[in-house]
């Protein structure tokens, strides 16, 4: 009986020990990066001659069955970090034109002011920021307002794509049931 008792005590203790084990969790909204040309790092290894133009670094929050736009997650009429955690970063490796304005190569922060029918993309000079808590309109480089497109199927994780256009790139941001497009030319 005593042997059995010892066995169960040991089993119980080791079970609680295993349960107590704690691993560093992955962020709920993991960071991601997207290049233009798409998959540039793989292309480079294969010896591409294409010129590296830009990169977006952003964290990708999930919808998780929540209402997103117009809710407390992304309220209408407020400047949003266009992601999660740190505000979304735009790296231009060559000079570009955004909203008719020449934007020199460099690091910028990309915010969005979201409304029901339109989004205003904001390119701002202040980098390495968290959320939109320190957003300063005096540091805006340019603002571009575009219409919102309704999607048939909701997108679970916020997704920013860089798509080839006639004279440059369309930055398409989609989440939940809407997307908005920021045209960039070179």
């Amino acid at each position: 009986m005593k042997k059995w008792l010892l066995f169960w005590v040991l089993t119980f203790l080791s079970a609680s020990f295993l349960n107590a084990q704690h691993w560093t969790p992955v962020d709920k909204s993991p960071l991601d990066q997207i290049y233009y040309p798409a998959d540039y790092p793989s292309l480079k290894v294969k010896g591409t001659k294409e010129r590296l133009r830009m990169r977006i670094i952003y964290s990708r929050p999930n919808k998780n069955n929540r209402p997103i736009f117009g809710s407390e997650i992304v309220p209408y009429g407020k400047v949003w970090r266009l992601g999660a955690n740190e505000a979304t970063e735009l790296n231009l490796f060559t000079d570009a034109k955004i909203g008719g304005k020449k934007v020199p190569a460099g690091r910028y922060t990309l915010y969005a002011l979201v409304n029901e029918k339109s989004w205003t993309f904001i390119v701002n000079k202040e980098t390495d920021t968290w959320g939109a808590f320190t957003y300063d309109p005096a540091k805006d480089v340019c603002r571009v307002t575009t219409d919102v497109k309704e999607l048939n199927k909701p997108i679970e994780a916020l997704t920013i794509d860089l798509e080839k256009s006639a004279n440059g790139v369309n930055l398409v941001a989609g989440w939940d049931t809407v997307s908005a497009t920021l045209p960039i030319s070179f």
Partner: protein
Amino acid sequence: MCTLSKCFVAICFASLLLTGCKDKEGEKTVNEPVTNDTATPDTAHQPHTVTEDNNLYADVDISPMDMSYFPAKYPQMKIADPRVAPPVMRVIYSRPHLQGRKLFEEILKYGETWRLGANEATELDIFQPVTIGDKKLPAGRYTLYAIPKAGYWTIAVNSSLDQWGLKQDPSHDIVRVQVPVTYYNPVMEYFTMVFEKTGTGANLIMAWDDAVAKLPIKI
């Protein structure tokens, strides 16, 4: 005495069942990290669905990207004081995880080049000049990789940017530093890089499994 023991055994058994239940619930919880103790050899190497069990459109990478600043958590510091001095540096890397494997030699091999992460080559962004080894590095973007050996890791700072991490070109190395590595540290499931403040600047801590290597950086 016998009934008491029986009682105790019954309690133990019940607790086991309860903790077992907790585990099962945990598996279903969104954002709960996968732990090794529930993984079987068959599933250990398969992509898990931690945050993504209802995402049909865009999978989160199995080794998600992350970034660490020096000073640590710089963007959050800025909220408290918007006039805080600019950051010194940051590292952008993807975080592979053990998933039941041993770091050496199941994932890394001694003497072989490792990208210090996953996917793209790990990037070190320097915003103010710093010194690594005996080399003064001006502000700019760099990549990092390592050649781990049992007693020390060689850390290379390289000038080739924006490329997949499996093909390093040592001819673009700017500086190489040998740093000591320690073992039997608390086990890190995910590869982790953070900066810690030192008397002369900062250490870039590289921790995975029970191994920890520190790259000293003078500021």
